[in-house]
Structure formats: C-alpha cells, structure tokens
C-alpha cells in the first residue's frame, strides 16, 4: 500500500484535479483499490464525486479516535474507488491536531488500519505549510507536487525541498511535475527547461492547460469518466505511469 499526497504550498495549481484523475486511472487501469481523502475543507474532491462534504462528528471525532476512518468512507460511482469526504470542520484541522499528543504522527496512525483494504491512498491537501501538512508528510510515502511554470514556482519548489530536508523527512519521495502548462507561452517553456535542468527529478509528464480539465467541475466526474481519449486525459495517464514506476522503483 502506498500513500501519495497531492500537495503544493500554493493554491489553485491543480492538486485536486491530480488527486481525482490519478485515483480514477489507478483504479481502472491497475485495478487498484483506491481511497481518496479529501482533506480540504472546501471539499472540491467531494464535489467532483458528487458526495456530500460532511463527516459524522466532524474532524474532532476521528482525530480523537472516537470514530474510525473506515466507517466514514463512501463508495464513489466507480468500481474500486472510495472517498473519505471533506467536512467544513476541516478548516480547524490544525487546532484539532494540536490538541492531540504527537500531532504530526496522528494521520499516519489513523490511516494504518486501512492498509489492508487499499492498494493506494491519495490525500488531496489544502495549500500552505501548517501542522496538518506536517502530519500529511509523516503519513505519506510520496509527495506529488503540481506546479504552474511561473517565476515563483522555482522558489516554491526550493522552499519545499529545504523544508523536507530540515525536517529530516527522508522517507518521502518528492515528485514535482508541471501542471496547467500553456506550450504557446514562451515563458512556460523556458521556466520548465530551467527547472528541469536544476531538478532533473522533475517528472517528464506535463499536464496542459485545457478546457477539458476545467469541464470536470461541470461534469462532476473524473476526466476518464467522460473522455476516452484526448490530450489532457492522456497527460494524466502518462503522469500515472511515471508515478507508478516511482512506486515500484
């Protein structure tokens, strides 16, 4: 079982789109049993799966251990793909964690019983570095990090690298990749080249900026559920292949 966090310090970079689409592809193509955990109080992932962003007892109940995560899981419309929905109370997840002893170990511990049932767990994370993201880093095996090729993205990536190093999070494989890329923009191409030169570990797959992806909000389905072929779904499939290789490396 592998736990992958879809994470970036920055907002609006495609974290949710990545979590939803990779989960769907992994469950279909590899017949993995997949769970997505929507940790963002905005509940975008839950929305895409048409599942109410509501958790019985809120974040307190499972953080304190009075409710096991397993009982909060909902089946999505897709075979082998389940969701742990978001809840409005997740905006206070930091506080809830802080009230607990060893807060950064908490998510890891809560997820442990689900290892038997799932082959892959994807955490859709809210932006920022906080107590919650620390707990996510502890729980995860991989950090899949979408970035839009802007002048700021190099700096953000460096920040993240430094953070992982300073906090000795050596178990965590960082997998940065480019998302919402407009190949027609000279700047996008240049920045991608520069970053790949400095960080050759950057994944080769590039997610283009495409209206097909935007349509997910209208369709309320993963890309693969309403598109068989196309530039964007192919890009996510390639991305999954690379992640899968990294999982098996």
């Amino acid at each position, binding site marked *: 079982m592998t736990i992958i966090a879809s994470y970036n310090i920055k907002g609006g970079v495609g974290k949710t789109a990545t979590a939803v689409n990779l989960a769907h592809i992994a469950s279909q193509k590899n017949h993995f049993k997949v769970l997505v955990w929507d940790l963002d109080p905005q509940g975008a992932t839950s929305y895409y*799966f*048409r*599942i*109410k962003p509501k958790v019985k007892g809120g974040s307190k109940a499972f953080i304190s251990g009075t409710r096991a995560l397993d009982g*909060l*899981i*909902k*089946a999505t*419309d897709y075979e082998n793909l*389940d969701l742990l929905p978001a809840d409005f109370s997740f905006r206070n997840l930091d506080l809830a964690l802080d009230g607990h002893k060893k807060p950064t170990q908490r998510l890891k511990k809560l997820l442990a019983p689900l290892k038997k049932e799932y082959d892959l767990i994807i955490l859709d994370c809210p932006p920022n570095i906080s107590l919650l993201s620390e707990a996510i880093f502890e729980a995860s095996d991989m950090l899949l990090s979408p970035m839009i090729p802007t002048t700021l993205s190099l700096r953000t990536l460096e920040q993240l690298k430094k953070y992982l190093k300073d906090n000795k999070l050596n178990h965590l494989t960082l997998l940065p990749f480019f998302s919402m890329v407009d190949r027609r923009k000279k700047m996008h191409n240049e920045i991608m080249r520069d970053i790949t030169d400095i960080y050759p570990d950057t994944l080769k797959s590039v997610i283009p900026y495409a209206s097909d992806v935007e349509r997910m909000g209208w369709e*309320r389905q993963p890309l693969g559920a309403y598109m068989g072929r196309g530039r964007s779904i192919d890009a996510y499939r390639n991305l999954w292949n690379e992640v899968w290789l990294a999982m098996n490396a």
Partner: protein
Amino acid sequence: MSAGSLYFKCPDNLTAKKFLKKLAKIVTLEIVAQEYMCKTFYDSFDSLLYTHNMICEFNHSQKQSNMCLIDRKLGHMIATEMVEDMPRFVGQCAEGRIKKLLVSSLAMRAIIPLCHLPLTVYRLNILNKDQKIVLRLQLDAYDDLNHYVRVLPLKGYDKAAEKMLSVLQAQWHFKPAKSTALDDALKSMNQAPQSYSSKFQLKLTPDTPANEACLHIYLYLLKVINKNESGVIEDIDTEFLHDFRVAVRRTRAGLNQLKNVLPDNELAQYAEFFAWLGQITSTTRDLDVYLLSYQDYKLILPAEMQADLEPFYTLLKQKQIIAQDSLVEHLTSDYYQDSLANWQKYLNSSVRKAIKTDMGGLTVKELADKRIWKMLKRVLSEGAAINHDSPAEALHDLRKTAKKLRYLMEFFASLYTPSDIKLLIKSLKQLQKVLGDFQDYEIQEISLKQFKKELKDNQATENTLLAMEKLVTHLEHQRGLAREKFADRFNLFQKIEHQAQFQLLFAPAQKVKS
C-alpha cells in the same frame, strides 16, 4: 449494514417491465446495462458441486462470457473469471481461485451442462438528487422462470439500501431467495440434483431372508451399471467406466461368493455375461489409468528427459480411442442389451416369488456372518503362510481373497455397528493397498515393457526408449518396496485385538458358544 438477505425472488408473473416501472415511481433510476444472455449451469454427473454447496454457471452474451461460482446457500458470488468456453475438466481451467475451488471438489470428474436458461440481466443504479449512485441493483429476468433481484449496497450508503430492502419486503412482498434459478429450473423439469454415489450404500435389515437380500444387492448394482452406461459410451470422463466396472466386479463377487442362496443353475448364464462384461471393459480402463498416470510418470524422469516421453502419450491416446470404439460396439450389441434386460427381468420377477435353496432359508445376517467369517479365516491363514521367500503368486492369491472379503463386508456393512465395521474395512483396505501396489507395479512393468516394444516398432527415438526403460526400472524398485512392506502390514492386520473384534462381530452364533 443489516445482516439480512440481499437476494430476492420476485413474485410470479412480475415482468421486468412492471418491476422497472414500479421502481421508477419511487426512486431515480438509471438502467446502466440490459444484456440478453444465456446462463448454463454445470455440475459433475454425481452432483459434486451441489454437494459442496456450489453452483457453477457459464454466462454467455454477445459481448462476453464468464464462468462463475456461486454459494448455493447464500446466493453470493464466490469467484468469477472471463472464459471463452467452459472447460470440461478442472485441469483445463486457468490457474486461479476457481481452479483451486474446483480441484478439491471435482478431482477428475468432467463438468457437464445441466440446463440452459436464457435471461435478460438489467444492471440498475439508484441515484440521489446530486445524480450520485447510492445503490445498485441487478435484475435477472429469466425468460421462463421467476425473476431474481440482487441488492448491491454501496459503502457509506446504508440508508439507501435499507430503504430499498424495506420496500421490496414490506411493500412489494418479495421473499428472500431460499433457492436459486437452478433449483427452479430443475423443479420445472421434474428433476432433482442427481443423488449418486459410487459407494455401496444399500441398507439391509438383519432378518430379511438371505435370498431376498441378495436380489436387492444385485438390483442396486444393476442400477449403478445403468446410471453409468451412457457416460461410458459417451466417454464423458473416466469415472463412469470406473464405477461401471466396480459394479460389474461387485456383481461377479456376489455371484461367486453367495452360492446356493439363489438357484445357481439359473444364475450360470449371468455369471458368464458379467465375466464377459469385465473383460471387454478392461482394456479401456487400463489405458485410462495409464493416461491419468502420465503426469506422474513424467515426474519420475529428470526434467531434461520428460519431453522424450511424449510419443508414449500419443501411443496411449491412440490405443485408448481404438479401445473405446470397440467398447462402445460391445455396449451397443444385442448380446449386451439382451443380457442386461434379462438380468433385470429375472431379478424383478424373483423378488416377487419365494425361492427355495440351501442357503436361501437363512436370514441375511446369518448368511453374512457365515460368509464373512469363512473368508476372514481364509485371509488370515493364507497371509500367515506367506514368508520372505514365498513366490509372487502367493501374494496375488491373498490379494484376491482379501478382495472377496472386502466385497462381502461392503455388501453387508449395514448389518453391523457402523463404527466397528468401518474400522475393520479400513484395516483391510490398508492390507489391500500393499497387496494391490505390489501387483500393480508388476502389471505396469509388464505393460510398459510391451509399450516400449511397440514404440520401438513405431520407430521411436532412442531417447524415448531410454525414458521408458527408466520408468520400468523405477517400477521394479517400487515393487520391491511394496513387497517389503507386506510383512509389517499383515502383522498389524493380524493383531489379536483385530481378531477378537472379528470374532465378536462375525463368528456364527453357535461357534462363539462352543
């Protein structure tokens, strides 16, 4: 989730259309798929899967076909696999869960189709107001039988499932399915799953007149012969001929061992017929056994020699086909059909009239005690006379005597305390195993030498002949080992307590008193 049933039988005359209409009135319904297919149920001739509480289905539609194992009691699917065609034998299944489950219940029996049921399968989704699926249903709409509905709850949506279950049961009066479509189909054809066992299981009562009991034994065996006949002719699997021959041998043992119970002069022609029947079935059976043992033979050889044995397999297969043809000819001959029909007529008519013979006046229990006691003493004395230097013939003779004892004990087992007789048959079996092995290895050795000669005449390669030679050597060695085991085995059999038990059980009453 409530632990109740999720599988329901629809009321009579409820069509798929009506069901869908009713459903659409109370929920948002999406028909995901509607597929016309044919479901074929499979089992072995002797209903081994049924006995193991399994149902094997082959579902065939235009798009795809799969093989499914269903829990017969609970109705849920145990395993499923895509297949193009149904395998006939377990050996032909792909490695996996289905194969594992079938191996343990079917062994070498063929799986044969029981009945075909055409049906339309509807896969339905129930949606909430966000158009999210909260429950799945499957409707199996059989062309000519009651429909079945399966409720497939989704994790985290217990309420939707509970609501549906309550509608189905409380409002629409659907009953939890206690049977399956297979049971319905068999019932509509006036059939029950085959109740067949190759074991001799005739229940006798001790004070039945001996002659009447013998007739029942023969009639029971005749039924076994009849049941297996078509399977032998169609060559469905090797067990048909095996069971057919066992029934023939048992009949012969009865005719030879239970003399003077029925008029011997009237039985003479049948004794001759069954001897013939034993003979004309033996070649095919022998070849079946060699073919079944082929994999084991191969494994005796080192890996690099195994391929060299291939021509041996081809030879066996060719010979088996020829032998089977000639067997079918015999079993469709007038002599066979008339003799068997006469035998049946003779037994049935004799049941109805009183026959007087020397032994016929005894009760079956008296006859059984007498015959078993006598044969037992013979086994003990023949066995005791065998020492390290005795010729092979002595062991062969003992094997035959032990076999006769075994048949008698099986015929009459129902007259004795089950646990006692089981124990005795078991210990006799173990003695027979050593004696049987000893002879089997010798016969195999002789036959393999013969096959080797034939292969040589057919221009087989030197390597093939070498592989055959290696098998012969191996068998020689095995035979030696079996011979060595004999003394120990027999001593065990002979052990005082055994004899004491035998005496208590079988010694005719007056002898125990004296």
